[in-house]
């Protein structure tokens, strides 16, 4: 088996009494684009800083190429960081900023440096900016210089801490594409921190979803998007309707669940559940369909409102129960009107694609029910 480039082994980190990182273990493969995704305060940046050495760890180990680096100072680790605020040295021009690493490590002669800097600036499309000072550059340009300054050291891993956070939406989209291109061209392993799921899903080879200092799920974007391992991931990634249901029958590959008096059959059986248990059914809003006439395996709902928002139509529905109290709200996103033009008050049957729904164990204390 191929040895991973970087291994995190049961890594724990405390800030005082606060347990920031809990038993983090996973491998990073050479050449991949790995994203640490999680809400703010989940510990993803701290994890990045543990890898770079700017934070120490309290227990566990970090192996780079099979050797422990946990006791090495940041300047002895062959990883480099692109900081959130870029952290360009304000007293040095672009050329001297990029030269900083090789100069302090005395790895290259000034003659070799000239060539290297030219290449690095070429790579980030900033040729000709050698003599500019950081304050004379725009946000996107500073970003590129920060990347060039890190990449010239030929790190084993490039760590990027929400590098696009400070840029406006258009520039962000553009830089996403450029970063991907850069990663392909240089073949450098990227570990990328973000709280933006679109960014993560778009760019990554693999995503590590982190919440409250714990790894929730690790997988490819498609896997994470379609098969969330738990309720947190289901809520955090994508845009889903989440319904609390009773498990009526459960077998590998198919289950029957009840929502009030309504019963539906679903085709997913990834998580072991037992009849009689409470569970949650999570369905992507844009993988649902509506029908004005009864269809099998559908929930009977009442249309509440219809919103047209550009390319998509949003329909708010309420699940029909015998009693008026506690009717769950369901949102359906359609990209075409289809053949059911409902009006508020109409009865509508909602069904979904098999791959759009997952049945997950209910977690104690979950408060996510959306009622009308």
């Amino acid at each position, binding site marked *: 088996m191929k040895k991973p480039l970087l291994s995190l082994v049961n890594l724990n980190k405390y800030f005082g009494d606060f347990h920031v990182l809990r038993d983090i273990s996973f491998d990073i493969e050479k050449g991949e684009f790995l994203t640490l995704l999680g809400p703010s305060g989940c510990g993803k940046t701290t994890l990045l800083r543990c890898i*770079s*050495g*700017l934070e120490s760890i309290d227990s566990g180990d970090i192996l780079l190429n099979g050797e422990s680096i946990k006791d090495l*100072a*940041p*300047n002895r680790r062959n990883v*480099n*960081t692109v*900081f*959130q*605020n870029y*952290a*360009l*040295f*304000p*007293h040095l021009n672009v050329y001297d900023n990029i030269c*900083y*690493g090789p100069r*302090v*490590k005395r790895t290259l002669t000034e003659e070799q440096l000239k060539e290297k800097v030219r290449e690095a600036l070429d790579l980030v499309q900033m040729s000709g900016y050698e003599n500019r*000072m*950081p*304050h004379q550059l725009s946000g996107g340009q500073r970003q590129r210089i920060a990347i060039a*300054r*890190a990449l010239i*050291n030929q790190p084993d891993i490039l760590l990027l801490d929400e590098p696009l956070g400070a840029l406006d939406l258009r520039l962000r989209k553009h830089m996403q594409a450029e970063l991907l291109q850069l990663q392909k061209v240089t073949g450098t392993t990227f570990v990328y921190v973000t709280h933006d799921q679109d960014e993560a899903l778009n760019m990554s080879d693999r995503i590590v979803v982190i919440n409250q200092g714990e790894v929730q799920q690790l997988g490819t974007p498609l896997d994470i998007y379609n098969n969330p391992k738990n309720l947190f991931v289901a809520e955090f990634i994508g845009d889903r309707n989440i319904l609390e249901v009773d498990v009526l029958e459960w077998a590998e590959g198919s289950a029957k669940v009840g929502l009030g008096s309504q019963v539906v059959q679903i085709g997913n059986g990834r998580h072991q559940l037992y009849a009689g248990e409470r569970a949650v059914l999570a369905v992507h809003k844009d993988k649902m369909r509506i029908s004005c006439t009864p269809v099998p395996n559908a929930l009977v709902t009442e249309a509440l409102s219809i919103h047209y928002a550009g390319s998509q139509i949003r329909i708010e529905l309420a699940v029909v129960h015998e009693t008026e109290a506690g009717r769950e709200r369901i949102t359906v996103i359609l990209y075409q009107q289809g053949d059911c033009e409902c009006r508020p008050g109409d009865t509508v049957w909602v069904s979904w694609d098999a791959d759009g729904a997952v049945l997950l164990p209910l977690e104690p204390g979950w408060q996510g029910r959306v009622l009308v």
Partner: protein
Amino acid sequence: MKALRQNALAIPILIWFGLLVGIPLVYVVVVSFLSRDDLGNIVWQFTLDNYRRILDPVYLRVFVNSFMLAFLTGLVTLLIGYPVAYITSKLDPKRRSLAIGLIILPFWISSLLRTYGWVILLGNWGIINNVLMALGLVDQPLQMMYRFGTTLVGTAYMLIPFMIIAVYNSVDKLDKSLLEASYDLGASKRQTFLRVVLPLTIPGIAGGFTLVFMPALGLYFISDLLGGGQTVFLGNLIHTLVNRGRNRPLAAAFSVGMIVMVILVVSIYSRLTKNQKEGLLL
């Protein structure tokens, strides 16, 4: 009209400066070009004689003494004050305010009294000599008073808070992520200090140096009490010329010379900080 209204708030302070700084300054410059009679009264007769006299080697020596004292005071306060400021900025908030309080505390006591404190400490029958003699380490009191070095110590002691606060402000403003970026790029702590911290705190160093240099040129009671008049400095000379020599035109000429020295230092300061300011305002 609009400009006038916008700047109306500045008028009181301009009047204030005009009255308290501008007029005395013009007065000093004017007097420096006048003569005096035998009784020391100012005579309205234009002369360059005062300036000719201050260029006399004997008097030039005084300029050199004063410049040396002020420059060395700046250097000594920098060498001691920089580490103090640097360490202070690294303390946790509670200890930091305590440390800053302790640095400022001496200001609550009259500087004259504190200078007498040095006399009590360093005098021939002062505390240090008494202790040394009681321990039998020396037979005779060490001559610590009335030397150039004593004046230097006293002046540096008096002015070091200015240096510490100026450097502290600029170290404190330093973006911590720049230090992290430096370590991350492979620099050791020493390299980071020399390549990032030091260059970025030059404005603080220059500011502190200026704040120390300027008063050090003019403080005269410290050299009177601790230096015993062994070395003549500008401040003492001007003081003597006005009060005893009754030669105010000459004193004014010396004052102008001192102001020129200060202007030189300030212009070096602004040149040092000009390039940095733009970059630091990021």
